[in-house]
C-alpha cells in the first residue's frame, strides 16, 4: 500500500534536525492539524450555508443571495457577524447556567468528531483504533445538550422541542450504529482509515455502496434524522413549536446551535463518503493511472497530486450528499412524530438488523468480496 505523504513525520523530522527533542517536536506539531480542522470545519459550514441558500433558491426558481460578495458568497459571513453582535438575551425565568451550557454541549461533540475524518492515508488528526465508534459515542452526547437547553429555557415549546430531539436522536442512533456495524464487519476494523483502505483497489467498483445498498439508505435516513434535516426536523417544527429548543436563544448561543447543526450535517456527509463512497478514492485507482503512465508510486509530485485529489474527492462526495440533503428538503414534507418513531423502530431497526445478519452470512459465504 502506498503510504502517501506524511506531513506529521516530515514536520517532526525537520524540527528534530534543528536539535529539538522528539517530544517537543510532537507537541509543536499537535496544534496544527487541530487548527486546520477547526478552521476547515467552520469554512465548511460557511460553504454549506451558502450552498443551502443558493440551491434552495434554485429549487424555488429564485436567485438567492446575490449582492454580498460575488454571487452572495459572503452572505453566511454577514449572518455570522450579525449573530456575534446581537444582544445575548437570557430570559428572566430561565436557568442561566444550564441555558449557557446547553449550546456548548451540542457543539463540542460535533467538532470533536472531526478527529476521525480522514482526507488521505495520513491526513487525519488521529487514526484512533475505535474510529467510527468514537463518532457514534460522541453524537450520543448531543441529546443531553438539547434536553438541557430545552429545560433551561423555561418555555413549553423549548421543552417539547428538546424532548423530541432527544427521542429522535436516541431512536435513530440504533439503525445508524447497526448499519455502521455492517461496514465494520466487512472491514474488520473500526478505524476510518482501514474502512477506506478496504474499499480501495477497484476504483468506483470497490466502494461499499455496491456491497451495502440497504445499509447505505438506512445510514442516510438515520443521518438526516440525527442532523434534524427537513423530513425529520420535528424538534424545531416552526408551525408547532416556534423553533423548538432554540426558541429562547439569540446571539452567539443561537449561532452555536446553528453552527452545530451544519457541522453535524457536514460531518455526517463526510463520514458517509468515507463509509460508503470510498473516502478519498478517485473513481479509478491512482495506482492504476500511475502504472498506466509509467510513473513510480513514490514520485513526490504524484504524491502531492494524490493528496490534493484525495481531499478534493472526499469533499466532492460529501458535498454531493449535502446537495441531495438540500434537494430533499424541498421535496419531502415533514413527518409526524408518530410516523418518525414508527419509521425508526418498526422499519429501520428491523431492516438494519436483517442487513447486519445478511452481511455476516455473506461474509462467511464469500470472504473474498465481503472482507474475510
Amino acid at each position: 500500500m502506498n503510504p502517501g505523504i506524511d506531513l506529521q513525520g516530515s514536520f517532526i523530522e525537520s524540527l528534530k534536525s534543528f536539535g529539538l527533542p522528539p517530544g517537543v517536536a510532537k507537541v509543536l506539531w499537535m496544534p496544527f492539524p487541530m487548527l486546520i480542522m477547526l478552521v476547515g470545519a467552520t469554512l465548511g459550514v460557511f460553504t454549506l450555508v451558502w450552498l443551502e441558500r443558493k440551491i434552495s433558491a434554485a429549487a424555488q426558481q429564485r436567485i438567492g443571495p446575490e449582492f454580498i460578495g460575488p454571487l452572495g458568497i459572503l452572505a453566511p459571513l454577514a449572518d455570522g457577524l450579525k449573530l456575534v453582535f446581537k444582544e445575548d438575551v437570557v430570559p428572566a425565568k430561565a436557568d442561566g447556567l444550564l441555558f449557557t451550557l446547553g449550546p456548548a454541549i451540542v457543539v463540542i461533540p460535533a467538532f470533536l468528531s472531526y478527529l476521525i475524518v480522514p482526507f488521505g492515508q495520513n491526513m487525519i488528526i488521529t487514526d484512533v483504533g475505535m474510529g467510527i465508534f468514537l463518532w457514534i459515542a460522541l453524537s450520543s452526547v448531543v441529546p443531553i445538550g438539547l434536553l438541557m437547553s430545552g429545560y433551561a429555557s423555561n418555555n413549553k415549546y423549548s421543552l417539547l422541542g428538546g424532548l423530541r430531539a432527544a427521542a429522535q436522536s436516541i431512536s435513530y442512533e440504533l439503525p445508524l450504529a447497526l448499519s455502521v456495524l455492517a461496514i465494520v464487519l466487512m472491514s474488520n476494523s473500526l478505524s476510518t482509515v482501514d474502512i477506506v483502505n478496504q474499499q480501495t483497489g477497484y476504483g468506483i467498483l470497490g466502494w461499499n455502496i455496491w456491497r451495502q445498498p440497504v445499509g447505505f439508505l438506512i445510514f442516510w435516513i438515520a443521518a438526516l434524522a440525527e442532523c434534524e434535516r427537513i423530513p425529520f426536523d420535528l424538534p424545531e417544527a416552526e408551525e408547532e413549536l416556534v423553533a423548538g429548543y432554540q426558541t429562547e436563544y439569540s446571539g452567539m448561543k443561537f449561532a452555536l446551535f446553528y453552527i452545530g447543526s451544519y457541522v453535524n450535517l457536514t460531518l455526517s456527509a463526510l463520514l458517509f463518503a468515507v463509509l460508503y463512497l470510498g473516502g478519498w478514492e478517485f473513481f479509478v485507482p491512482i495506482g492504476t493511472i500511475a502504472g498506466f503512465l509509467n510513473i513510480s508510486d513514490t514520485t513526490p509530485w504524484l504524491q502531492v497530486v494524490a493528496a490534493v485529489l484525495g481531499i478534493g474527492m472526499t469533499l466532492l462526495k460529501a458535498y454531493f450528499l449535502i446537495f441531495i440533503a438540500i434537494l430533499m428538503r424541498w421535496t419531502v414534507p415533514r413527518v409526524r412524530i408518530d410516523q418518525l418513531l414508527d419509521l425508526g423502530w418498526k422499519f429501520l431497526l428491523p431492516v438494519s438488523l436483517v442487513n447486519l445478519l445478511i452481511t455476516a452470512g455473506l461474509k462467511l459465504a464469500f470472504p473474498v468480496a465481503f472482507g474475510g
Partner: protein
Amino acid sequence: MLKFLKQVGDYTKEAVQAGKYIGQGLAVTFDHMRRRPVTVQYPYEKLIPSERFRGRIHFEFDKCIACEVCVRVCPINLPVVDWEFNKESKKKQLNHYSIDFGVCIFCGNCVEFCPTNCLSMTEEYELSTYDRHELNFDSVALGRLPYKVTDDAMVTPLRELVYLPKGVLDPHDLPPGSKRAGARPEEIVESEK
C-alpha cells in the same frame, strides 16, 4: 407461514413504492433547478403595471364640482371634501380635497362614480413612508403624476406575464417589438368594423 410471507412481501412493495414516489419528487425538484429564476430584482428591475392597475388615485382640482359622490360610494367615506357655498355664483367652491392612502383600499369606486372624471387611477404603488400621516395626500399631492417605470433610466422595466409573447415565461431579454399573445384592443376594434 404463507400469510406471513405475503405480509412481508406487501410491506416491501409499499416501501419500494414510497421510495419511488420520493424519487419522483426529487426529480421534480431537480428539474426546477435548471429553470431561470422568476425573480424581479425590485429596485433595479420593475414590472410595468397593467392598464387597469389600481394604484394611487390622481385628482384634478379644477374639474371637481364638490358633489361628494366619491365620499358616498367610498366603503369608509374616506375622501375629505372641504367646500363652501359661493353665494355670488351660486355654486359650491372647493377649498381642499384629500384622501388618506394609509386607509384607502384602492377599490376604485370613487373613480368609477366621479361624474366629472376628476379622479383617476395611476400606476404608482410605492407608497411607503416613515410616518403614516405622510400618506394623507392633500389636493396638491393628489395632483402629482407618478414617474413612469419605462422613463426611469435607473430601472429595467419588465413586462408582466400576460404581456409576454406566447410561450415565453421570462420577461428578461425580450427581442424588441415582440408582441403579447392574443389580439390587442385596437386590433379587435379593427376586426369588428
